[in-house]
């Protein structure tokens, strides 16, 4: 288990992290979501030992990053945001170098190399200089270096940024596969990039965690009431006015008349579902229902609401 406890970081006068707390269990993929500059990368850099926190600590099981940085680094596979690589090295040489640093024997390296070449699709470029590889391949090389030693913890900072849609799907599938046995944390500022991949989402804004849960939990927690749009014909004023008194638990929040139709906005608690009663009332009142739509709360709305950002826009 990874435990991040009350993490704080100051860059001079800038308070970049203001007490970050969260946990990740084995076999869990957690999405770390936030706008640019929210503190995602700083948190991940502290988790990997690249930066020291101003306060707080990170634990992997019982080891903390301050006192056991080397032990923790051995257990982590990290893909930094900018995916820095040694362009002058061949892909094979680079992975061999990483294996040597990771203390892998030659035979162990051969086995691991076969595995990561297969998983990341590197066969076509394995003997090329890294500088000759495309952005997509460079991202895969970074990923393969991160998973070469089969670490327990994988930390990917914006792993699919800059990739084309096909590559994104491939990387997502790989992360899903890896996440079955490992602790995986993926950061992104684009909700759609991680929504389909992760088990849980942690949203960070201005150095603070503003939400932490599954996408369903976040959506449920964010919108306390459900909205329904009802588009009807042949509704007279009296029957429209009587609707909220005739059907339990609903509130008509808006009503507009458009070309002989009435468009009603109705709200009710998430725990109840009055749609059948509304339908019966409409039928008994002689209305013709043209449309009845229960508005879905999108995760993007949650993200926008919590961070004041558009999750889909860079």
């Amino acid at each position, binding site marked *: 288990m990874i435990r991040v406890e009350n993490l704080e970081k100051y*860059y001079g006068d800038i308070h970049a992290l203001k007490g970050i707390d969260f946990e990740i269990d084995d076999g869990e993929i957690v999405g770390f979501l936030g706008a640019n500059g929210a503190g995602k990368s700083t948190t991940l*850099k502290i988790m*990997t*030992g*690249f*930066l*020291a926190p101003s306060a707080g600590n990170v634990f992997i099981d019982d080891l903390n990053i301050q006192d056991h940085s*080397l032990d923790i*680094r*051995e257990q*982590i596979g*990290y893909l*930094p945001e*900018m995916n*820095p*690589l*040694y362009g*002058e*090295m061949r892909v094979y*040489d680079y992975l061999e*170098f*990483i294996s*040597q*640093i*990771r*203390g892998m024997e030659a035979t162990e390296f051969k086995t691991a190399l076969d595995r990561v070449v297969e998983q990341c699709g590197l066969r076509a470029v394995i003997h090329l200089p890294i500088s000759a590889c495309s952005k997509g391949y460079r991202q895969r090389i970074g990923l393969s270096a991160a998973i070469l030693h089969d670490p327990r913890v994988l930390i990917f900072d914006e792993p699919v940024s800059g990739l084309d849609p096909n590559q994104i799907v491939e990387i997502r599938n790989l992360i899903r596969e890896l996440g079955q046995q490992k602790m995986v944390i993926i950061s992104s500022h684009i909700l759609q990039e991680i929504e389909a991949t992760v088990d849980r989402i942690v949203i960070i804004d201005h150095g603070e965690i503003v939400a932490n849960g599954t996408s369903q939990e976040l959506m449920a927690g964010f919108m306390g009431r459900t909205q329904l749009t009802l588009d009807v014909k042949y509704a007279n004023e009296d029957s429209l006015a009587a609707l909220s008194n005739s059907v339990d638990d609903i509130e008509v929040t808006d009503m507009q008349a458009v070309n002989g139709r009435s468009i009603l906005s109705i709200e009710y608690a998430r725990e109840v579902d009055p749609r059948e009663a509304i339908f019966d009332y409409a039928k008994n009142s002689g209305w013709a229902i043209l449309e009845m739509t229960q508005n879905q709360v999108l995760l993007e709305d949650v993200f926008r609401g919590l961070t004041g950002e558009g999750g889909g826009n860079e």
Partner: protein
Amino acid sequence: MNNMMAIYRKEVGAYFKSPMAYIFLVFFALFNGYFFSNTFFLFNQSDMRALFNITPMIYLIFVPAVTMGVIAREKSAGTHELMATLPIKNFELVIGKYLSAFTLVLAGLGFTLVHFFTLLVVGTNIDYGGVICGYLGLALVGAFYAAIGTFTSSLTDNQVVAFILAAVFVLGFYLLDKLLIFVPAALAGPLQFMAVDYHLSNMSRGVVDSRNLVYFGSLIWLFLALTVRGIDMRKWR
């Protein structure tokens, strides 16, 4: 140790995969060859003191050029983040990189052996002890300057700045004993001991004093320790 060797091999490979190493070595060999052969036949003596006088001056540019990117390049390329998150101790990183730069300096020095072989062919009564001690002195000066260059490279992500800082440092140590006439007598002794030339001139005469070895050893250690400390401190910024 394994990590250190892995870094060393990677760095040496990086040097020789880029044309810069060959350019440095060719220029180093040309400059040494030109200045050495200019006076060699003029003095008509079977010794290599001319080389032992010239090489430290060429080092003033050559060694900072070799070391300028040793850590600064990692910072500018962002690969220092990669290295800092791998299970490597900072001293392993620094020593591995330092040794790779020193290897290039030794390779440059190796080119000058051609002058020794020339001496073997055309010279008489060669003082082999003097030559060996002189080369040992040049190797130690190269090692010392490489340590300075590694340190200045760790201070910045700009290779040009690292080069200039290293050149200023090595020039300072080189010129110290030439400025003695400007300092009070009480300071002359310590300053002379701090000067590179003072120790090198001893060695190029064929005398290896333990003080010379302690001087180079302790200053190399000091600058490498400062480099390691600087990298340790980086994560707290």
